[in-house]
């Protein structure tokens, strides 16, 4: 049962998508791998009903997003609390990250590193907005944060990314 070839094929088809989303939301590749595993285990429980669905990719993205948000709130800190505590340190951390990790990298790698270096409260809404096409209102609802805070976090996140990219180029 566990060695279902259809399910293996399903994982092969979607593993990059799930892993990419988790890595960008969490900013940590090891944690992203754990969350990707959890997402596929959940998918296995409902595989009979989703395997023929044209929206299985969207379902998997939603599950992955929810798992990552739960992980962030459970294992790192509660969303709002973390956001408030981290607010003052955001700029410094985000600028320092990419240069330390990869001083010579360009283009895509620079952007990925700059994104990963953003603090959680800026990176998560920014990823949901730019990659997952969620509106500000949907993001605020999903994160349980005020709309104004989501907008300002995304705005600040973009500013930090801009500075990072300018510093890298």
């Amino acid at each position, binding site marked *: 049962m*566990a*060695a279902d070839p259809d399910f*293996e094929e399903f994982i092969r088809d979607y593993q*990059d998508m799930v892993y*990419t989303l988790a890595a960008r939301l969490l900013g940590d590749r090891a944690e992203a*791998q754990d969350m*990707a595993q959890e997402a596929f285990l959940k998918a296995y429980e409902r595989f009979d009903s989703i395997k023929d669905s044209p929206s299985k990719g969207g379902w998997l993205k939603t599950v992955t997003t929810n798992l990552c948000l739960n992980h962030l709130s459970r294992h790192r800190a509660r969303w709002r609390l973390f956001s408030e505590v981290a607010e003052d340190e955001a700029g410094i951390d985000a600028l320092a990250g990419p240069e330390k990790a990869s001083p010579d990298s360009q283009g895509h790698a620079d952007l990925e590193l700059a994104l990963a270096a953003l603090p959680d409260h800026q990176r998560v809404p920014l990823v949901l907005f*730019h990659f997952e096409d969620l509106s500000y209102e949907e993001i605020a609802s999903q994160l349980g944060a005020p709309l104004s805070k989501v907008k300002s976090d995304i705005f600040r996140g*973009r500013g930090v990314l801009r500075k990072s990219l300018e510093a890298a180029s």
Partner: protein
Amino acid sequence: MNDWDKELHSKLRRLPSLKAPAALLPAVMERLEARTRWAWWAWPAPARAFSLLTLAAGAGELPVAGGRLWARLPAASSSVVSRAFSALASAHNGVSTALARSLWEVLAAFAQPLLVPVLLMYLLCAAGAIIVWQLSLRPRHLRHI
């Protein structure tokens, strides 16, 4: 969004997907296999038979308990439901009593001496779990509640 934001948006959208680690697929399959190993249908046959018997005995107690409860209600004691419960209860009573007695005779010989240590271990585990939850797992801002 201003021009720079739009440019950033298009740069972000053009980012290629990351490559999932090669270990991801085997790790998922291994966890599924481990889960299957512990599934009920993978238990040894005697364990499955014992669990079924225990379940049946437990489920059988429900109509008996229901019948007793119903019979205690004065207005309902002569109703059709009460008579049905009573019939079901008396039929089941004989079977479940015999089953429980034979199970107890088999188990009592080696289970009775273990009862106190098992109970103590259970209480210790519960206390340990509460301490771990309070100290490390519970979100910090809820710990005072």
